[in-house]
């Protein structure tokens, strides 16, 4: 047996073992009192195991025959096939299909609907069949046909795939609406839409596979061509589709009980004393605004007309404002007239907020037109007859130029403003208390760990100091501040930041001579000391393990009166302001002299010193800036949560934040945001997918896979990528032209 055979055999064993481990991971983990090994039995003994072994075998075949597989994997059609499969799989395994089932049986997913469908005799047979066996059969058939189309390039296979995809999409819609019509519950689930998109993608894959002339797929180029054909047009088109949904079928009032559409809301609110503007909006103004904005933005993007774009932009902004005013009027009147449907801002459906997002999409699309038609491109268009197509290259350029940050910022801003109100209360809580706060913390730690390269394992201590400073200053601790110092929570934020700045400098000054592991140990010790201090209640200052109760923030400034209470949504907007301020500041900081100095000391401290960087001061600054961000988060957290105790500030929390930063991509601002957002969202998402106790295992598996296959993180910083992937891999394309030989 030669080495090659032995290596192949070892790989086979490894792949099968991987499948075996996966089999153990999927499904119940806990045993029962009668049979401690029950979960092992279920996982291993039974036909189920063969599915997982098959997965291992497929991976083995793929790896072993990789050079022969690659030419097929790069063919046109593979990318949409993958995306479509992913969408369909996600829709039919993890996403919700019917919300009322969640409250009644606890399972509103595809499988839950199947059980319910089988039990209801009045449901149409198509629907029962779709949820029963048809859907999965269609997926497999489409997969087989599409694979055949990709491999053989015979047209028939492609058309068959397309037919299956379209049938699947139609059936999914029909089956889902049959369920909704029969039961009549209020459904906000997205599973069916993801399923439809997935099936349509499969159809596209089939057509692409047999009609594309290229041997190697150029997905990115294709997308760029589509997006670049008319900058903004795809966004405007998306706006039209979502807008039609928002204005015709989406619920505008009575989120959880009645779900009035726009038209129903109009008749319900007629004569309730609602403002005439709102009434008109619900009646005809909304549709008119939407229609006008849609037509104008489509025309502006298609004709690339600056004038039309400006008009459409203004109309879209007016649309957002009027929609918002209408919503406010509706929610106030609704809370008075029909309090059984929820209080202010809790009685609205998703429709109104979706309409706001739609208008923002139109604004983003027209903003793209405005930025892409500046100077050269516009003159070019005017010089030629309208029918005369621009050559692709210049259109692509037009897209690239217009793909500036503005439209993305508009869309991102619209989502941040108008999406959270449509979330359930649980998710709003997660958004504020988990995602938002930890994003803030990760962004702060990224300065210390990612930019300055100092491993800080006691970061949570600054968060704790920030929380306790606010608690002290509002008089929530056993030791009260002098009366002249007592203040409201929001005013205490600058003082909390100051306290953490001082604490950061006090910790940093003596310890920043240390490097790497030594610094990590010292900061770890610091974190522990602060936490234990809070528990031990020295001098009765902290109140011990009990923890303080901090009042919610309020603003009384002249005519402005804002009070925050139990509801999480208002905190989100407060947090959003903080996040924007911090992110903008840090974004500017990264490119500043200080940012360059951090990069330099991270790269080579001796060289940084030789270049005139005051390394001690710069490191201290990183520490202080990181600490003050943490203080901001801590201060916010204390006043938002209302009650906290020292058990939250453990070493585990510090390590988790480091993990967020590393997962997202050390040294990259977007990475820190994405890392924290994904890893705080995931446990909540997994709650509905796997047994409670298995969550950590799946998160661990994800982090492990990430570090193996994408060690630079989710959205890596350019420089850090070079560090991990070797210098040659990340060298710029200009380098490739330089011959590698010629060493001196």
């Amino acid at each position, binding site marked *: 047996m030669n080495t090659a055979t032995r290596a192949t055999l070892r790989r086979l064993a490894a792949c099968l073992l991987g499948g075996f481990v996966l089999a153990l991971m999927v499904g119940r983990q806990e045993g029962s009192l009668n049979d401690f090994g029950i979960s092992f039995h279920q996982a291993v003994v039974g036909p189920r195991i063969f599915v997982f072994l098959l997965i291992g075998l497929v991976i083995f075949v793929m790896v072993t025959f990789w050079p022969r597989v690659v030419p097929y994997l790069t063919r046109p059609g593979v990318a949409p096939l993958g995306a479509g499969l992913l969408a369909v799989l996600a829709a039919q395994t993890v996403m919700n299909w019917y919300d009322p089932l969640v409250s009644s049986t606890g399972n509103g997913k595809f499988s839950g609907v199947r059980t319910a469908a089988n039990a209801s005799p009045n449901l149409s047979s198509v629907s029962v069949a779709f949820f029963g066996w048809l859907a999965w059969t269609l997926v497999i058939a489409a997969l087989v046909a599409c694979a055949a189309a990709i491999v053989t390039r015979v047209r028939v296979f492609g058309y068959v795939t397309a037919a299956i995809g379209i049938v699947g999409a139609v059936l999914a819609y029909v089956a889902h609406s049959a369920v909704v019509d029969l039961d009549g519950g209020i459904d906000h689930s997205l599973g069916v839409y993801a399923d439809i998109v997935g099936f349509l993608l499969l159809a596209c894959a089939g057509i692409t596979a047999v009609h594309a002339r290229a041997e190697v797929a150029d997905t990115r180029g294709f997308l760029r061509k589509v997006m670049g054909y008319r900058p903004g047009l795809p966004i405007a088109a998306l706006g039209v589709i979502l807008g039609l949904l928002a204005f015709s079928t989406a619920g505008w009032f009575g989120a959880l009980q009645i779900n009035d559409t726009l038209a129903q809301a109009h008749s319900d609110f007629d004569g309730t004393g609602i403002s005439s503007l709102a009434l008109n909006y619900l009646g005809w103004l909304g549709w008119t605004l939407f229609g006008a904005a849609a037509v104008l933005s489509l025309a502006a993007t298609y004709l690339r007309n600056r004038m039309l774009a400006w008009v459409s932009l203004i109309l879209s902004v007016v649309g957002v404002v009027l929609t918002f005013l209408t919503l406010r009027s509706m929610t106030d009147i609704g809370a008075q007239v029909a309090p059984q449907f929820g209080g202010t801002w809790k009685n609205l459906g998703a429709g109104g907020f979706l309409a706001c997002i739609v208008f923002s999409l139109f604004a983003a699309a027209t903003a793209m037109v405005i930025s892409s038609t500046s100077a050269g491109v516009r003159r070019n268009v005017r010089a030629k007859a309208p029918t005369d197509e621009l050559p692709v290259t210049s259109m692509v350029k037009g897209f690239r130029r217009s793909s500036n940050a503005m439209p993305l910022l508009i869309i991102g801003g619209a989502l941040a403003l108008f999406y959270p109100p449509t979330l359930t209360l649980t998710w709003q809580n997660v958004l504020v208390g988990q995602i938002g706060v930890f994003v803030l913390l990760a962004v702060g730690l990224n300065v210390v760990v990612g930019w300055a390269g100092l491993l800080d394992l006691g970061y949570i201590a600054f968060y704790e100091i920030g929380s306790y400073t606010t608690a002290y200053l509002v008089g929530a601790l056993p030791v009260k501040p002098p009366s002249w110092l007592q203040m409201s929570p929001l005013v205490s934020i600058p003082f909390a930041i100051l306290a953490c700045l001082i604490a950061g400098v006090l910790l940093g000054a003596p310890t920043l001579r240390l490097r790497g592991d030594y610094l990590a140990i010292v900061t770890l010790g610091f974190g522990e000391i602060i936490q234990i201090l809070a528990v031990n209640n020295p001098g009765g200052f902290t109140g011990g393990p009990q923890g303080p109760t901090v009042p919610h923030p309020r603003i009384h400034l002249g005519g402005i009166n804002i009070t925050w209470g139990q509801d999480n949504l208002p905190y989100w907007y407060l947090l959003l302001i903080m996040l924007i301020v911090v992110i903008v500041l840090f974004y500017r900081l990264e490119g500043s002299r200080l940012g360059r100095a951090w990069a*330099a000391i991270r*790269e080579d401290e001796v*060289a940084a010193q030789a*270049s*005139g960087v005051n390394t001690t001061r710069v490191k201290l600054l990183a520490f202080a800036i990181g600490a003050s961000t943490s203080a901001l988060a801590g201060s916010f957290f204390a006043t938002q949560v209302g009650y906290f105790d020292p058990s939250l500030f453990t070493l585990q929390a510090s390590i988790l934040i480091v993990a967020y930063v590393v997962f997202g991509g050390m040294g990259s601002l977007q990475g820190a945001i994405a890392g924290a957002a994904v890893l705080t969202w995931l446990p909540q998402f997994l709650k509905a997918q796997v047994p409670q106790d298995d969550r950590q295992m799946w998160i661990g598996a994800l982090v492990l896979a990430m570090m193996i296959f994408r060690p630079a993180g989710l959205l890596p910083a350019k420089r850090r990528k070079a560090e991990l992937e070797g210098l040659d891999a990340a060298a*710029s394309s200009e380098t490739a032209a330089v011959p590698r030989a010629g060493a*001196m």
Partner: protein
Amino acid sequence: MTESIDLSKGQETPTSPAVSSSSTLLNVDDIEVRYGTIRALKGVSFHVNEGEIVALLGANGAGKTTTQKTVSGMLRPSLGAITYDGKRIDGIPAHELIRLGICHVPEGRHVFPRMTVHENLEMGAFRFKKIDQTDLDNVLEMFPRLKERYKQLGGTLSGGEQQMLAIGRALMGKPRLLLLDEPSMGLAPLVVAQIFEILRDINNSGVTVLLVEQNAAQALGLADRGYVLETGEIVLEGTGSDLLADDRIRAAYLGEEIAAS
């Protein structure tokens, strides 16, 4: 930044060798440096005149790098004084000495491996608010290699190119006194010759050079004067050509079998 204005003035005045040889730019007076209880330098004294190239020679462990580090502010002498341009500078940290025009190229090159050549050079001008385009052009003219690899990452350069980058980076700080620690380390003889050629050009443009070297033949061929360090003490000094002719030097550093002949 008043210092930098003064400096640029001082640098603009042409420094002809005749004038500069009389004025002492750097004077190291009987310094002693300790690493814990070990005395690495036991009273080292030497001086560098404006416009000169001075070589500091010595075997491994003689204290060359310690001397260089002390002059560049990374170590602090326990005894003795260092004066630069008439001012005491011992104990001033490295990043502040750069403002006075003392730039150094550390031992082992120390380029920023994951910054491009351009970014490396930019870091050299860190003490200025804005990068000086003429300086950049001069450096790129001096090192055409760096121009070729302008967008390449520092760590991907060859040893010689990295040394050039390190020197170029130091030049971006508008030095009056350039300290170099073993620029020939680990480089092919041809490249060493090339780098020493460039050092001569730099010196001709008015920059005083203090060179710490093991490669005695090359260094003394370039230097106006030289000092030889042995176990923390200066044992020999003289002009470059004198030292090059000295039997002891030839025996110790050039490997010639004087004793046998």
